[in-house]
């Protein structure tokens, strides 16, 4: 049906020419022709990647593991032993009894030389600082700005006491950990430096220098817990004092930015098991040293069967003792090595030509890939 005289009469073409359409602009982008690199998964590339990963990961894993192993750690659980025999049947009643003597003596043995600074942590188990009711129960504005002392939104149910706003408000501050430790070695007091245990940024920007606690721990509802009334004072000489009289007794308070225990506590933990820094011992501890600790077992973990541990630990470049990263790195590195080997073997045992046209038979059911 081909004909040479196709355009013998072309009068209809004039109509087509009238359509004023212009060609679209040309660029590599509009034509989808940008130069592109199209990598494909060749055996060589894939095996090299796996080998490379394993070559990098195994040494890093070893280094991490060594770093973790170098850290010396003393963990002592004391929540059970610090309950007097007579009260062991009802621990909650004992801990909630404000008049009971909470003093408890424990001894720690240093099994390996510990280089200063030695971090003193308390570790709580089964304590949900990340609970939704708890984690949001604070007011950052109030903590930062003395003008906003009466903003207590989000602090419920610990926002007001006796009709007045609490500073610092909220469940977190209200449930501040209050066990105390006094360390001694060979009957000589070991100083625990409680300065600088919190984040500097918190001290400088999150907790105001002119914000003072008000009306704190003065409420009528203390949900079964027995909390110390006053903030434990840091051993410091530059604290300011201020008096506030709510009837009796008389309280001394320090500015919030100096209340480092509170600042540390208010950095809520993401996990129900966590350690918080209590202080630092700035002398070395020698192997064989015996540390005796006089502690006040005030904090109630008994009602929810939480454990309390005292931890002394040195630090390495990766932080505290944690084998996880090292082991994980070795595992991943090993796995990649294994995969690299496996693929190499498969490659040699059952070579497969890439782009083999015999796999392009369209007559077969194309679904069978």
């Amino acid at each position, binding site marked *: *049906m081909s*004909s040479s*005289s196709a355009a*013998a009469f072309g*009068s*209809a073409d004039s*109509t087509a020419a009238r*359509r004023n*359409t212009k*060609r679209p602009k040309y660029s590599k982008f*509009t*034509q*989808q022709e940008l130069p*592109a690199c*199209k990598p*494909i*998964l060749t*055996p060589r590339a*894939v095996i090299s*990647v*796996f080998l490379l990963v394993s070559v990098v990961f195994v040494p890093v894993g070893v280094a991490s593991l060594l770093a973790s192993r170098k850290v010396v750690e003393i963990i002592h659980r004391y929540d059970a032993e610090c309950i007097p025999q007579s009260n062991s049947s009802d621990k909650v009643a004992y801990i909630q009894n404000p008049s009971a003597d909470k003093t408890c003596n424990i001894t720690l043995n240093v099994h390996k030389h510990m280089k200063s600074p030695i*971090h003193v942590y308390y570790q709580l188990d089964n304590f*949900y600082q*990340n*609970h939704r*009711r708890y*984690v949001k129960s604070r007011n950052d504005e109030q903590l930062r700005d003395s003008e906003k002392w009466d903003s207590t939104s989000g602090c419920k*149910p610990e926002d007001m006491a006796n009709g007045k706003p609490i500073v610092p408000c909220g469940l977190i501050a*209200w*449930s501040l950990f209050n066990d105390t430790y006094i360390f001694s070695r060979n009957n000589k007091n070991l100083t625990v430096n409680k300065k600088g245990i919190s984040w500097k*940024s918190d001290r400088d920007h999150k907790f105001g220098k002119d914000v003072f606690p008000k009306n704190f721990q003065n409420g009528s509802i203390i*949900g*079964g*817990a027995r909390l110390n009334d006053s903030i434990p004072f840091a051993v410091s000489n530059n604290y300011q004092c201020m008096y506030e009289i709510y009837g009796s007794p008389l309280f001394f308070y320090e500015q919030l930015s100096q209340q480092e225990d509170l600042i540390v506590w208010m950095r809520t933990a*993401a*996990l*129900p098991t966590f350690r918080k820094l209590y202080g630092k011992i700035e002398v070395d501890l020698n192997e064989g040293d015996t540390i005796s600790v006089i502690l006040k077992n005030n904090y*109630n973990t008994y*009602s*929810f069967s939480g454990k309390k541990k005292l931890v002394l*630990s040195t630090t390495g470049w990766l*932080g*505290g003792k*944690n084998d996880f*990263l090292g082991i994980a790195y070795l595992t*991943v590195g090993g796995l990649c090595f294994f995969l690299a080997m496996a693929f190499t073997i498969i490659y040699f045992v059952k070579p*497969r030509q*890439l*782009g*083999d*046209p015999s*796999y*392009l*038979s*369209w*007559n077969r*059911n*194309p*679904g069978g*890939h």
Partner: protein
Amino acid sequence: MKRYVYINDDESAHDLYCDNRISNRKYTVLNFIPKNLWEQFSRFMNQYFLLIACLQLWSLITPVNPASTWGPLIFIFAVSATKEAWDDYHRYLSDKKANEKEVWVVRNGIKKLIQAQDIHVGNIVWLRENDEVPCDLVLIGSSDPQGLCYIETAAMDGETDLKTRVIPSACMGIDVELLHKIKGVIECPTPNKDIRRFDANMRLFPPFIDNDICPLTIKNTVLQSCYLRNTEWACGVAVYTGNETKLGMSRGIPEPKLTAMDAMIDKLTGAIFVFQIVVVMVLGIAGNVWKDTEAKKQWYVLYPDKGPWYELLIIPLRFELLCSIMIPISIKVSLDLVKGLYAKFIDWDHRMVDLETSTPSNATNTAISEDLGQVEYILTDKTGTLTENKMIFRRCCISGIFYGNENGDALKDVELLHAVSSGSPDVVQFLTIMAICNTVIPTQSKTGDILYKAQSQDEDALVQAAAHLHMVFFNKSGNILEVKFNSSVLQYEVLETLEFTSDRKRMSLVLRDCQNGKILLLSKGADEAILPYARTGQQTRNFVEAVEQYAHLGLRTLCLAWRELREDEYREWSLMFREANSTLVDREWRVAEVCQRIEHNLEVLGVTAIEDRLQDGVPETIETLRKAGINFWMLTGDKQNTAIQIALSCNFISPEPKGQLLSIDGKTEDEVRRSLERVLLTMRITTSEPKDVAFVIDGWALDFALNHYRKAFTELAILSRTAICCRVTPSQKAQLVQILKSCDYRTLAIGDGGNDVRMIQQADIGVGISGREGLQAARAADYSIGKFRFLKRLILVHGRYSYNRTAFLSQYSFYKSLLICFIQIFFSFISGVSGTSLFNSVSLMAYNVFYTSVPVLVSVLDKDLSEETVIQHPQILFYCQAGRLLNPSTFAGWFGRSLFHAVVVFLISIHAYAYDKSEMEEVSMVALSGCIWLQAFVVAMETNSFTILQHLAIWGNLAGFYAINWIFSALPASGMYTIMFRLCRQPSYWISIFLMTAAGMSPILAIKYFRYTYRPSKINTLQQAERLGGPILSLGTIEPQPRPLIEKDVSTLSITQPKNRNPVYEPLLSDSPNATRRSSGTPFDFFQSQSRSSLPNYSRNCKDN
């Protein structure tokens, strides 16, 4: 329902009908916000997001700042609303321009210049040359002495040729000055959108012509948006104004089309929603149990002993909010964005520009590009779509003598030239009919050439051919036609025009020969519309054979006939004709009936054969697309034989022995049923064999099949890869599309003419060829292309890429949302199932909006295979058609991947950041960083081709994540003050991140590599072959075994044998289904031509796995 328009009556109509203010606007300033919001919220996804956002306002249950949902939600809504407002503003501007255009209108008997919007029904509007018509007018005057005027209707129907309009007879000869004072009434139908019909009457009041009802047709009107051309002035009465004009009524927003992919995404969203509800219920119950048992002991959380009545709901609702991010809020915006870009790529594509007319392709509908990649059936028109619609007169048969058979061009046939010069009466009469029996308008150009403006290409071809044979139609002034034959000028006066309709399939002219005063009837039309009315005694056998023969060559045939009318016969008939023309009800039918009374006893002169050439590249395109597993149906109004010939020549059907053509026909319902059953039986047997079986059906049989045997026909439609439907009407075309759609096939309809519009609108995808029959189809279509061959690129390149890209983008959107959601769920198990969010509000919001949306957006540039490879291996389209890249099982893969990655990120974060380091904000940022790194690598791994933009987006985004977080970490007021600085200084942070990346990606890489190398999909194999540069061979075209024909009870006939066609024709307008029908009696056709390679057989069931 009628409307009475009082001409020039300044008061009465003002309140009755609206003024001429055009408004295409969807909104007004006042209702924009409520209406737009209402529209947006009518979508389920938006309702869901609104519910979530509202729940978040309740601070007791919200895990994060409500801004994290409101922000994106407002952003998304603002984007959609801005787009709508922008479009609406532009509509307003163009409306305003049209409304404020100044026009001359008669007011109180004086011509005044007023704004177009102040025109009222009944006003007389004056137009000058090249003016745009402001509203629908009934003409009452024109500068032309015959009362003619010419208009261009391109804005309305896309047809660029000029059309004549004539003033009604009642207004003929009224003095220009008196037109100001004319009074009368026009009785017309209520506003409707039919731009081809206007059945009205006009009566002028005294002193003009008393009590004479004058019929009006569409010929007497000029419609809004047309242009007045070649006429000095014209004036008319406004009958429809403003939004009630024919154009205004036909305007309307077509129903939005939903792609198969969107439907799948909706389905998956639904599944995720159900999953989310389950998770929420489980966690809600667990949370309440934990609260009642454990939380009571945790004194520091200070649970009140007795909560409010809704206490039990609080925890589930919290989890609902926490899990709400499972359904990504960004997916809609991302999809809209990329779809817009797909459409732009089509508009921009230089390889789809028709160089002849420099028409670029255009995607009118920007939302359905993915569907192009999933097309299973293409329903195509023939004329103008497969063929060029450039008609050339090739052969003719005059009184039994064939001309043009030797050299294929009658114009060069010496015998014909000789016959013309010798003035053989039959030949001269034949040429006269060719030259004047039409609606062509000759115009003389300045150089003296005669240009013809024809509405139909066939007429143009005939007039041109007649001119070549010295019968030059050179002037038409009013009713007088002037023809020059061998230097003598002949004049004819047109008395009546019996117009062509697709039902009548013929047109006739009653005219008076000015030379001798005789009244003649000249007719031309399809063979079955002319030959049955031949005068008794005339042998039509010759003509039947000629028609047969020409049809076999794929030529379009027209029969020409004439007869002389007696004066009284004409006069009697003329009265009936006028009466029929002035009826208001069923005018078309009545007119046709009257026409038939005169169109009989014809002296058939001969047959013309016009060639319509195939467009370039049609056979290749069809072959490629069929290899891609797309089934073709040809729906044409043409004759069966012509259709079959065209089908053969463009690879549509394969000749014997490869192909087999089954015919469904029959005169009666019963015959059609038997024929259908027979074909169905044959079809069932042959489906398993590598043979192209096609069926052919004509409009008559199709009517029975569709109305009475729909089920059987549907089964046939499923079994048959190819079908030819001839003689089908526009509504049947649409019905066929409907049938295929009802079987869940994705259909694409392609056509070029007004008769394809319904099919184009009905199909999942409508493609219009911006061709010679005007732009009507192109305007109604979702895509318009210049040539049929661009369809290949449209489907294989644009459709396929769009599908692949959207498949990745949508699943990836779910992946990243699920990833972060799973981490939140895991975290809830270690936070006392209380619904604490690990991530802060800023991170959650930015995660969806910034961190993860940018890299994936550049996946619109991804190309898994190069365009050349795809065109070379069109079979690869199967993956898109069968939905291999987005279906529940691939989605499950992404779901599993997100679960795995969530486990990796979560476990590593909580273990690496345990004990003294387990600070909430730090852990949260570690986990978030892990997610960001993993998603960057996931995008990188799923990207097949990296351009500079991809690198920028993927790795730049990673850098951007740190930049944004450093900025936030520098702000004391933000919750994450100094966190990111602290983390970036810690070796353990980087070590954890690399661990997450390696642990998360290495199994995925291993699996991908294994599948890629040892279980490669066809795509993978082609990728490998393409990039290794080796020769790409396809073993797809295996020759099928020759097999004996199945010749049940159907006879096979060779096409070269003379057909025993029944020369009995039935009147087309007959209503009786029992009327005699021609039967072709050729259920099987052997096609004797060279063998072609077979096509792969895809079985449909493989779509389900």
